[in-house]
């Protein structure tokens, strides 16, 4: 997993912040004001954590609620293990748990064919909230559920999370 600590940011052009893509089941953390983006969230959830005091931000794109549902060496795929991983990786860049706030988006129930119980989108959101609660990290904004997809851009300089949807106005959380 890549950690951007400034040594790799020469590629940035001019004064624009570097833009780093986060794929499914991936995360990125930055202490360099990079913009972290992820696209195509359906039932997946994007969690943005921000520590304003220490200037550290992180974004993760999780796909499934619980890591113990299956054997898989990829914690960033899961809401529970992924949230913990993101917190730990941000701590490595100098963030503190007490300084962190959270914003989340995604967890749509579009094309959910499950016949009983709640869908994956709902369970993803629930699991992220639960794990955040264990760390006492407050959720400051969210745009979740519904039946449409979303793409996200986390502006690390301010902690703003911009949510784009195919047939809707952009939202800034």
């Amino acid at each position, binding site marked *: 997993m890549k950690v951007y600590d400034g040594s790799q940011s020469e590629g940035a052009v001019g004064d624009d912040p570097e833009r780093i*893509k986060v794929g*499914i*089941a991936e995360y990125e953390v930055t202490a360099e004001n990079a913009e972290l983006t992820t696209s195509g969230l359906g*039932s997946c959830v994007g969690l943005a954590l921000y520590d304003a005091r220490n200037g550290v931000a992180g974004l993760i794109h999780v*796909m499934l609620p619980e890591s113990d549902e299956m054997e898989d060496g990829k914690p960033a795929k899961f809401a529970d293990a992924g949230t913990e991983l993101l917190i730990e990786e941000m701590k490595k860049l100098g963030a503190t748990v007490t300084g962190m706030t959270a914003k989340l988006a995604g967890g*749509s129930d*579009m*094309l959910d*064919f499950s016949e009983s119980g709640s869908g*994956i989108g709902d369970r993803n959101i629930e699991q992220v909230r639960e794990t955040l609660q264990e760390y006492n990290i407050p959720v400051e904004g969210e745009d979740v559920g519904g039946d449409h997809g979303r793409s996200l851009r986390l502006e690390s300089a301010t902690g703003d999370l911009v949510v784009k949807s195919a047939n809707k106005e952009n939202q800034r959380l």
Partner: protein
Amino acid sequence: MKVDVEALDTFNQLAREGAEEATRSLAQMTGINGSVDVTKISLVDRGDIGEQLGDKAHVGVQFGFEGALAGDTALIFEEDQTAEIVEALMPGAAADESMAQSAIQEIGNIMMSGFIDGWAEYLGATINHTPPGYIEGSGEELLPKSDTVKGHDQVFVFRSDINWEGEPVKFFIYMLPEYEPMAELMAELGTEADNAIPIEKLAVFNQMTRDGTKKAAANVQQMSGIETEAEVSQISFTPLVDVPKQFGEDTYVGTAVEFTGAPSGFLIVLFDEQSAITVAEALMPVEMDSDELTDQHKMAIEELGNIMTSGFVDGWANVLQQSVEHTPPRLVHDMGRAIIDPLAAQLGQHQQHAFVIDSKMKTDEVEFESEIHALPNEKELREALEGLDVTRVEETEANTEEIF
């Protein structure tokens, strides 16, 4: 050859690491950072190799390799996107054809050495390669001809798509391994006998998918009176988390169903927005109120998605000689990637890798293209293939020929 899921996974990782190494090499040379979007292994008909390159002009390098694995490989750029990287490597070279060519050759050489070295290192073996040759041309004709796979109609193709941040540059790496060394490696890397699928059956599955697509096309034709052609179909194997990435950020309109039977899974019919408008107006016997995509268009697409799905699923059921049921279609209109995401997630509760079936159809009369994608449950697909009687498929094939 038996195709083992574990071995496929290893090959996939190798292709990804190789592509990442190639991308790093390019970044070092030019300062342009890229990311590997997709790597996948496809089993394709020799005739269909490189179909997705379309008619655009491409340039790149090609060379042969031998050792632990043998075959041909090519790295291909879209020609109109190369100026940026050529300039980054040799300022001023883009304007001079021969300089541009040698820049491409240099870039290709270094990237592909990275790609091949990654494989050799993993296998703990030597892979030698010939000097790279510059290639240019349009679409598939510039790919290696793969005549090394004598007697085998189906070829494995490794493909990687790499994108640069902020740069409209994209490249493909094709690797066409020779059959025998590939089969040996496959057997060596495979772990569980249960996971192995005889390649002949995977090929049959390709055929089945082609029949399904033909049937879907026939349904469209019957409904609209417009001659509709089934195009490429291929089955590919990829980590589950890479499945949504194969679909871009463009908006699509289409339908999705869940099908049950052996195997179960999801089936999606997609149109890009323009195709959706065109096809709804041209193929459906209704007058539209607007040129924009309206609810009326969407209803037409829903109907079309329904008959295409039924056709496709019937094609499968014929070969499997058992019924395959599907839910009523649900209309979707969203970013391609977001449409696939929840379907991949639902499969992801039970599996880490996915077989993806891709087909396309088009008509000559009307400018439209439609894609059909199936995401079967991996374990059930393996079981279905195990129980598949190859001779029966041949009989069914004969029947379908009569129908069309």
